């Protein structure tokens, strides 16, 4: 089975604050068909998010499939509340990079 890069499959991969205490990641896929295949591959899981960000699994709040937007959403506890001492990204908008390397097993 070959693999496809997530950046070829998704139209949007982004990070953003969900309030001051959480960081949320959105994957929005290019078509319903692609979305279904990624969803069924079961690659994007709390375990994967925990591993990519090197955080304990308990800090992954949820990974949710959202069919109407052909999207998968993951939310983690923010490393610190937005703007707290040591902050590097007040809006949380540049924390998505580790997600860009995800690969999905693919059968045409």
């Amino acid at each position, binding site marked *: 089975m070959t693999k496809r890069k997530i950046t070829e499959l998704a139209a*949007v991969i982004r990070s*953003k*604050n*969900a*309030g*001051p*205490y*959480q960081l*949320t990641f*959105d994957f*929005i896929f290019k078509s319903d068909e692609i979305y279904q295949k990624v969803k069924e591959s079961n690659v994007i899981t709390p375990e994967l998010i925990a591993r*990519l*960000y*090197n*955080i304990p699994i308990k800090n992954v*709040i*949820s990974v*949710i499939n*959202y069919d*109407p*937007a*052909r*999207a998968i*959403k993951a*939310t983690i*506890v923010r*490393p610190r*509340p*937005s*703007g*707290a*001492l*040591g*902050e*590097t*990204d*007040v*809006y949380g908008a*540049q*924390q998505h*990079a*580790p997600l860009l390397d995800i690969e999905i097993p693919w059968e045409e």
Partner: protein
Amino acid sequence: MGKEIRVLSPTAILGYGFPIESFKKGLAKNPDLIAVDAGSTDPGPYYLGAGKSFTDRTAVKRDLKLMLKAGVERKIPVIVGTAGGSGANEHLNWCLDIVREIAKEEDLHFKLAYINSEIDKETLRSYYDKDRVLPLEHDEDNYLAELDEAVRVVGQMGVEPIIEALKNDADVIIAGRVYDPTVFAAMGIMKGFDPGLAFHMGKILECAAIASDPGSGSDCMFGTLGENYFILEPLNEKRRCTTVSVAAHTLYEKSNPLKLHGPGGVLDLTGCNFEQLDERRVKVTGSRFIPGEQYTIKLEAARLIGYRTLSIAGTRDPIMISQIDDIIKAVRKTVEENFDDIDPSDYSLIFKIYGKNGVMGDLEPLKGVISHELGIIIDVVAKTQELANTICSFARSTMLHYGYPGRVATAGNLAFPYSPSDLKAGEVYEFCLNYLLIVDDPLELCSIHYEDM
């Protein structure tokens, strides 16, 4: 019923601007309401803590003037939520000052309502005493300690205070901190429309044209709320709403796209359906509001944690770059030894290294240095501005002249783009008090005032 509530949302945040053409198109569609969200916690804790707006006064006045003139002349209510960006009393007064100025300059006459949402500490303590405080995402209860440190506290109001003001025939309503969708949803809910649909439409309209394709926070969106649906339409011909653009926006900035918690209950979007009506319009059905067993108000607060001084510099020396972690350690040690009479807990010395882990910090998976140049910010937060200045100045001069092993460039280790090299950034705040208050009456923590302009 068969009726509709038509809502014009000019811009994602009051002060972000909008094209006049789009606004006129919205007015031509005979809206029942012009509403705008003026706030966000996104810019961080400083603005709530310092009592300042993150939006610019001239930009806010420009947007407000267009909205007030249009609304007052056509007898369409104008509602502003989370005035001044954070909705505390200082923010509200800042916005009211602009409203009064516009009314005077443009000779506009209307009934103004304004709603305070700042809560005093005595009241906040009494809720704790009555066991009416619920922690959010906290392992332990620090409510009273955090309350002591909080500079100002606001409670996120629901639709009820806005409905109260509308019932009292207010033409213009300027609200303190409110749950973002409320300013768009209140009129529909007051008139008996489904609160699930009203809140969901408000959730999209609060960001104006961001939910269209291409999206923009500086352009207008039009929402029509009917008996069992709502319809969204961008007002700029360049944009269109698609089922995906609208559904995708439902995700935005939220932890869970299916269950959105707000004052008084949960917006449940599990059974929601998005339908493409034509090229530019999307119809939404099936959004449900499930009232909670208790009515809760979410708190937002900020506490002062010190004063900041920054020094911004860069290095292009490969020998220095290869040892950057050791150099930082050595500079930190020198600072501590030089000021061993100062309690280390009185200041924090943080190095932000751009080109290494400046953006992701501890979350950065690429631990090795790969850049040929590094940006260095020496970030000091201390108990007083003077102490922050002292530590930053000393750390900067130590790093500038530090003799690391193998150094050949002995004239100085740092490139400064600015003189002065040290920038005094003033007060630093942190968010605190992540709690809910349980109320019997949604109006009990706010106060509504009326004024004839």
